[in-house]
């Protein structure tokens, strides 16, 4: 149902995902190491993925001291 322009854009993102996976899989891998490849996010650009799914703020917190809290 995509128009040609949208289809071509998604196709490019998909090709980018294949290149990214090849790069990520190229590192020396120990047994049970992570594998990267095609999944449900492969037709999203990096920016689209970030904008849609990586929306948590990084907050500051005090270092864990091991002390028990009262109350």
């Amino acid at each position, binding site marked *: 149902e995509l128009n040609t322009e949208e289809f071509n854009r998604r196709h490019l993102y998909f090709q980018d*995902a294949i290149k*990214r*996976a090849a790069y*990520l899989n190229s*590192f020396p891998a*120990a*047994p*049970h*190491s*992570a*594998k*990267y*490849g095609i*999944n*449900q*996010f*492969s037709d*999203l650009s*990096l920016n689209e*993925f*970030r*904008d*849609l*799914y*990586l*929306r*948590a*703020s*990084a*907050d*500051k*917190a*005090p*270092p*864990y001291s*091991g002390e028990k*809290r009262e*109350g």
Partner: protein
Amino acid sequence: LPAKFDWRDEGVLAPVQNQQACGSCWAFSVVEAIQAAHARAGSPLEQLSVQQVLDCSFRNQGCSGGSTVWALSWLNQTRVKLVPQSEYPYKAKTGICHFFSQSHGGVALKDFAAHDFSGQEEAMMGQLVSCGPLAVTVDAISWQDYLGGIIQHHCSSQHANHAILLIGYDTTGDIPYWILQNTWGTKWGNEGYAYVKIGGNICGKYDPCWFIYM
């Protein structure tokens, strides 16, 4: 500490959820941690409303993003009761906050604590075992292409951008790893879960980390 531990074995976790095209990870992470704490306190496991947190936690931006610590602070200060998911279902879009009377049933947060566990993996394991699943933030930029296995590279410890639930660890194999429950459905990763190597603060997994008391 046990060599391995997994809260999935204890019946306090709901199945893997799917946040869909909505930046609601922060709300899922908080609600799932509260569900687990509530179940650990002896109540039947009940799925609570993520949509309620998404719509009503006013310092956050709904599907446009938010902070787990702000959501927890809001729950702590207002004593709002989280109602069951069935009464306030998830819609994957920000909506108008629905109010419920104080007499309406639900689960209220009693207290919470936020900590940075950088370089204190054993302490974090201890908190995980004794306190329950932990809401944590990670750098998940490389998770777009993740298919499964133990993540050992490709994420920084400096740019946390995704909230998830830390539910266990396993140190019995060659590569010790954390077990994380994500909210991208069961087709992603290891049937919805990610494994991250223990050591070196990979993905900034304990920088910072929140755990929840009920």
